[in-house]
């Protein structure tokens, strides 16, 4: 089971519910940490491992959706599963828009809950792997000089050295030097590999002719 080393965080103000969920999740082999309030949970962060959060929508103090926003601010990628005692459609829609993993109605059946938790943890694992790749690429990207970066952006659009030189106002020879350094620093052997790396961290290439609006878009 993918979640065996994962931790599930339960945030619910009702002690009975907390105890019940704790037992159920432990019986499925997860490590479980329970919190009475959003404040307590936020104090527990940061957490670097894999896992997910089960969050009660309606709590005194900070409510579930408010906590969800705060977690987002803290750059925590833990997926959130909401539990609600009554199907409040507008709250659930808002939560899903903010990226909630799922929105379950109380009382929730063990199979449904555990499946959602499993998927959430799996997704978190993927996210974390992706995150690690991205961080590595970004580290490399940070070693490029400004000029090298300019050249790289031209290269991944498939431009010829001559074209790049004209666009940046430098000689073709200089372009070649920069291009060689870019390939070396980014640890790639081909333009195709470079394009893939850039794509991974959200630097995309698009033909200016195909879409006149924007040629390069940074997605954060």
């Amino acid at each position, binding site marked *: 089971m993918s979640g065996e080393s994962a931790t599930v965080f339960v945030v619910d103000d009702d002690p009975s519910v907390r105890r019940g969920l704790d*037992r*159920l999740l432990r019986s499925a082999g997860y490590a479980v940490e329970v919190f009475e309030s959003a404040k307590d949970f936020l104090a527990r962060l940061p957490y670097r491992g894999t896992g997910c959060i089960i969050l009660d929508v309606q709590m*005194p103090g900070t409510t579930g959706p408010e906590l969800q926003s705060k977690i987002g601010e803290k750059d925590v990628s833990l997926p959130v599963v909401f539990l609600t005692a009554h199907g409040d459609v507008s709250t659930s829609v808002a939560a899903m828009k903010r990226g909630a993993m799922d929105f379950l109605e109380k*009382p929730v059946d063990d199979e449904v809950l555990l499946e959602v938790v499993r998927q959430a943890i799996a997704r978190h694992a993927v996210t974390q792997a992706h995150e690690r790749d991205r961080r590595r690429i970004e580290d490399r990207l940070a070693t490029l000089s400004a000029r090298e970066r300019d050249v790289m952006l031209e290269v991944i659009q498939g431009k010829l050295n001559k074209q790049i030189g004209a666009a940046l106002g430098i000689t073709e020879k200089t372009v070649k030097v920069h291009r060689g350094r870019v390939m070396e620093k980014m640890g790639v052997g081909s333009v195709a590999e470079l394009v893939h790396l850039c794509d991974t961290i959200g630097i995309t290439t698009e033909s200016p002719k195909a879409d006149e609006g924007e040629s390069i878009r940074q997605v954060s």
Partner: protein
Amino acid sequence: MPETTPAESFHGLVAKLSADFVAMPAEAIDAGIESWLERIVRALGLERSALAQISDDGRMLVRTHAYTAPGFPPLPEHIRTDSDLPWLGRQLRAGRTIVVSKVEDLPAEAVQERQFMLSEAGPKSNVTLPLKVGGNVIGLITFASLSRERDWSQDVVQRLELIAGILANALMRKRKEWQIGSLLRFEQLLSSISATFVRLPAEDIDAALRSSLQEVVQFLGIDRATILSLSDDRTVLYRTHWHVTSDIEPMPPALGKDYAWSFGKLSKGEPVVVSCIADLPAEAAVEREYLERVGVRSMVAIPLFLGDLMLGAATFSASREEVRWPEALVQRLVLLGGVFAGALGRQAMEDAQREALHFETLIANVSARLVAVDLDRADEEVTHALETVLQFFGADYCTLAEADPDMDQAHIRYLASDAGVAPLPADFEYASKCPQTYDRIFRRGETLVRSRMGDYPAEDAIDREMVEALGIRSILAIPIAGGERPRYCLGLASSRENIIWPEEYVPRLRLLGDALVNALMRTRFEGALRTSEERFRRVVESAPNGVMMVDADGRIVLANPQIERIFGYRGEELRGRQVEMLLPPGERERHRAYRREHASESGLRAMGGGRELYGLRKDGTQVPVEIGLSPIRTNEGRFVLATVVDATERKQTEKALRDSARGLAEAQKIARLGSWTWDAVAQKLQLSDEARRIVGVEMAKFGDFIALARPQDRAELSEAIARLWTERADAIDLEFPIEPPGGGERIVRVRGRAYFGQDGSPVRAAGTIQDVSESRKAEEETRKLRTQLWHTDRVARSGTLTASLAHELNQPLTAILSNAQAALRFLAHDEPDLAELREILADIVRDDKRAAAVISGLRAMMRHHETERVSVDMAAVLTEVLGLLHSELIGAGIDLKTDFEQGCNVLADRVQLQQVVLNLVMNAVEAMRDSHAEKRRISVSCGGAGGTVQVRVQDTGPGISPQRRESVFDAFATTKPHGMGLGLAVCRSIVESHGGRIRVEAGDGGQGSRFVFEIPLMAGTGAEFGDNCVEVAP
């Protein structure tokens, strides 16, 4: 896009609206409609909605409810369906819904409607629906977009039709309930007013009329009521009695013939009903101008008639708002007019009677003094006589002129004038100054009656000019010492006002003149004494009322033919006998004592001090009389001159008056109100027709009446009635069931007061008897309705709590399910942890109980039951309710603080107490809806305080201003857009039904508000007794 209040979903709205109106009390419907119009407008993104009702005459649509978004023009208040929007009017009457997405949708014939849509206040797009009740169209409701054209989906239109149906029904229900409820109450008012006037002494009538007007003003919520009396010449209505609310001016003192339209209707006996000024027809331009000038927006005028004689009118008006005057209400006001007319008629009659008696006594007195006058004091006596007459008529001059036939001249010999006017010229000579007057009086013996200068015939122009030059406006001149050439003239004149001279007094004045002249003669001719006595005898004998002279020993010295007629004796049977022979035996001893006591008094007085007097006739029957006494002193000793008026006729007139005042009888019938009179002299009980109908049998004494009461009530009733006399309790007010001989129990209310003579002996008692069975039944209904209302309020509130309650229930269910499923999983493991499994089961049991408690709490709230009072611990009630509200408080972001003293037991209905607490806490939640999130806190505490338990619910909301603290407990005093405004009213009625009190004050530190209610602690309970009580109970 700026977001103000989030618009509700239109679909959900219709269901809520329908539920809201089902339970809405009639008084709340107007406010309810207005608030719903706003909600609909917001939900549909419109700018305006209005509801207009067809006026009584069917020609006008009157806007009665509206919501217009800020910054947009409202719909006009009045729309004439025949001229303003004729096409729309036709469509509505045909019951059609009119959907106009844009102005082009209108058909060609809708010319005016098109103009209206293109006008500044016109809609760009709207839906107009007829308000239909049982096939009748009573008005319209319109929803309009003023800013843009829009499409109206069939779905929306259908829902609007549904809304129109619900609102039309609500309006109709309001009209009906108003009619039933309010008419019932108005009839009670009518009955209490008419009870006031039964046998009310004439001098109290003015005050009673004024206070009746005040009661009507307060009852109808209008601001002015006025009684107007018609002038003698029937051209002007004078304001005589009125009541206005503080900031309203009374009506002007007089309304003249300009108001021809109103006058015309009133004099035909028709009421004038003006619901709004626009209702007035073109010919009522003067009325319209007047009403607009004085700011009256709505009025009713009721003609006051006594038989065929119009006495005046009563008007009721409102300046703040337009008032609907339903036909049924106008009818009741007409009845009220009947009561007023009866009272005014009786007052006028008694005034006239009193004045006539006064005049008789005065003439007799003056004559008697002149008979007995000393020769050297004759001038003084004559002047005194003139002064007396002057005062009686309120005139400015009274003269005695003497003619000299040889010289053909006449001069004023004696003059009395009011202190405030210029004296007449001493040498005034009639023949030279006023030749026609001289000719008429002294040559032809004519009496001159010139109430106003216009009464002078044209040929008397010189005389008129002369008189006017003296500043005189009104003259009466009576020739004296008749025959062909009168020698004297008695004159009365007024320079300050026109006096309508009562011609019926002229013959008596002439006799007085005779007496005066005689006295003068005596001063000139010796031995005229005898003639003088003759003259006096003539005065006495020709008097229209009884006059007799009684000597110091009470012997009758002289009795005129009228006395003989009144008492049925011949003159010689009376002369020399004791005057007490003419009194009922029971009165004689008292009269003798009285006569001795007052023998030395001088001056005119009425006998009996307002008591009713009876004389004994020769045939043994009694006759009601009024008696004036005036002592006279002559050379032969003291005498008392008694003027006796037979009041039989007046009593008959009074009876006729009562009969003619059909309004009173009618009012009595409607209000199931009869009157009774106990005549203490005749020892007889008299019942009005309606009173007889109520008790079902004729009866002549109180005993018969008491016999109708239930045996267990009789002793108490006898005592209460006896107290009327013995303790001089001047009023009784009793209510008890009776069983009339015809069967069927009735509840009657008997009110009355006793009237005593000056010496303290009972004269009569009078009052009303009312069949209040229906009112009591209505009150019982009201009580049931109130319980129903409490229930409705509870259910409505539980409804709003459903979401929270679902949460309360789902929490334990979640825990149970998770625990159970975890247990199953643990059991599937190789070595299940038994300790953990035991814990799980314990948790499941506890959560199951918790769920059950939520359900039973909710069920108790929804149950509709009759009150049952048991011992209830207040702290427990608070804990239960706050438990139910847990999620609601969390959802609203509210911090809760509690502090309960345990063991404060009260005898109460648990569910009702829960409801009070629930309403107060929910009210606090509502109050803090717009407060800063971190400041939302509710503190609930309870504790014993001086024999009561006090519960305090405090919030940190905006608080309630001191002025509003009293009114928040009134029904529908809501400031909340969605509330029914019943919550606090329900709290108060429940707390008061438990013998407690509720109030609101500023919260701690002046922040927020604190509702405090107190309920008496159970006797014998509390800390030291609480538990024992339970043990000794079987």
